[in-house]
């Protein structure tokens, strides 16, 4: 079963179009949703959360249409935003009382455990907390009402590596229950490299890649060669090429095939960041770093 099923989803704004996108998030897994700023990640998440109207297409969350079964769906999900959605004047203890009204299955004990675990002060006003603490508080709140699906929009952006790692570990712990799933939008690909099971890459409102992370990373490769050797590579195999003083680097989608096709040329493994970088500049063909 899929925790999220997006099919032919379209949404147009003035100057931007989310163009007929489709992807699934399998239950019990964490999907990284990557793309540069303005690629359409936040629009997709807003559509998932029912914050904006879709033009066409369908969204199923936990097997239910997110608009037709809005209340049922919303009672089982948790959203985490890039900035904390709580009033600065409240403290963590007061927040618990407020959220007990908001979430049907609010678990005060679990929330209290997370506060202790994250070393979050209970009586300090939210406005006086650091960015990392605020994010941890938001995540503590999101994990304290037994949500089956976490939807996070740039939740780790702006945090230092120590806090980010701490949060990523919490996500992995949350996924120990195979009923739970996470959609994590981020442009910090190293985080996703570490924890994501699958990845969806969006650019200019279109899905470029979606699938199991290890398959994607494993299938792509970077050919490292001299500029003069570029002419020997079939243009159909090339996503884009980075030219530097030391030579050329070309991203290819099928590493194994290219290894057979271009014997004698070095093809290295790649990372999500490189795949994103080469794809984003695919229109240019060749680019300099």
């Amino acid at each position, binding site marked *: 079963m899929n925790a999220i099923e997006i099919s032919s989803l379209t949404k147009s704004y003035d100057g931007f179009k989310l163009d007929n996108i489709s992807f699934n998030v399998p239950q019990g897994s964490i999907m990284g949703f990557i793309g540069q700023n303005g690629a359409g990640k936040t629009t997709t998440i807003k559509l998932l959360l029912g914050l904006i109207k879709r033009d066409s297409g369908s969204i199923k969350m936990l097997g239910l249409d997110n608009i037709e079964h809005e*209340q049922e769906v919303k*009672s089982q999900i948790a959203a985490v*935003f890039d900035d904390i959605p709580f009033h600065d004047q409240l403290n963590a203890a007061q927040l618990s009382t407020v959220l007990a009204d*908001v979430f049907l299955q609010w678990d005060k004990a679990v929330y209290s455990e997370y506060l202790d675990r994250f070393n979050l002060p209970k009586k300090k006003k939210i406005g006086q907390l650091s960015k990392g603490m605020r994010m941890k508080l938001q995540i503590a709140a999101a994990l304290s009402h037994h949500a089956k699906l976490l939807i996070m929009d740039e939740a780790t952006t702006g945090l230092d590596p120590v806090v980010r790692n701490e949060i990523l570990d919490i996500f992995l712990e949350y996924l120990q229950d195979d009923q739970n799933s996470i959609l994590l939008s981020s442009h910090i690909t190293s985080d996703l490299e570490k924890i994501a099971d699958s990845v969806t890459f969006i650019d200019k409102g279109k899905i470029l890649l979606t699938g199991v992370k290890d398959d994607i990373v494993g299938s792509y490769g970077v050919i490292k060669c001299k500029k003069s050797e570029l002419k020997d590579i079939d243009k159909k195999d090339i996503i884009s090429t980075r030219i530097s003083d030391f030579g050329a680097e070309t991203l290819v989608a099928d590493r194994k095939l290219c290894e057979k096709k271009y014997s004698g040329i070095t093809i290295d493994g790649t990372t999500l960041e490189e795949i994103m970088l080469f794809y984003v500049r695919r229109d240019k063909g060749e680019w300099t770093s």
Partner: protein
Amino acid sequence: MKGMIKKEITLSKKQMLLTVSMFAVFTALCILVRLSMECGNIADDAELRDHLMDNLWVLRYLPFVVLAFSYNPSLTLYGDIESGFLRLCKTTSYSIRSLIGTKVIMLLIFETCVFAVNAVYIVILSLIGGDEGIFSSMAVLLKMTLFFCAVLLLILFFSTVTEKKKTFEVALTAVVTLSGMAFEPFLINKMEKYSGRTDIDVLDLLRLELAPALKYILPLCVLLFISGVLLNIFVGARLLERRDG
């Protein structure tokens, strides 16, 4: 609802503390003046003492005037929007109608408390001889409370329509300006007509003159109040719930 009411109180705490302090200072001043009238400097000046006694009625609605503004649901709504809390609520199964309903209930509880404090004040003033018309004062207080609640509820409704803080300021300025424009010619006219009389006499004369119109004030306040509640619960909440774009 307990948590949401606590949130409303926490968000308005600063304003509430400020107005309660102002009220305490005013009350302390009044007590000092009253003590002075009995056994201080003013006791020796019969003319000043009588004048102050005649004008003690001015204080009848002091608690209402000072305290009624302490809780403003439009400003807490703005806080909900600005902090992102409203957006968070939209991603949960918590209904926006409950969010608005809490603000309406909180306003009613708060203004009822202000009414009760003011009612006690009126009784105390009448006991110390400042005013004998307890029941008429209570009736005026009730109308003022209903009218004030209605105005705040209507401003809350306009705030939900625009989702902007400025709505409150614009609406308040508009209400004050329009009221001023409507009443100014009337008041100037009456002041000229009754010039030379004491304030309390002028008020009594005005009350007599306006008696036929005054009987509509209570039903009008009730109507405005009910409209305010219904508009917020059934229309305002729906507007806030709507999806953008």
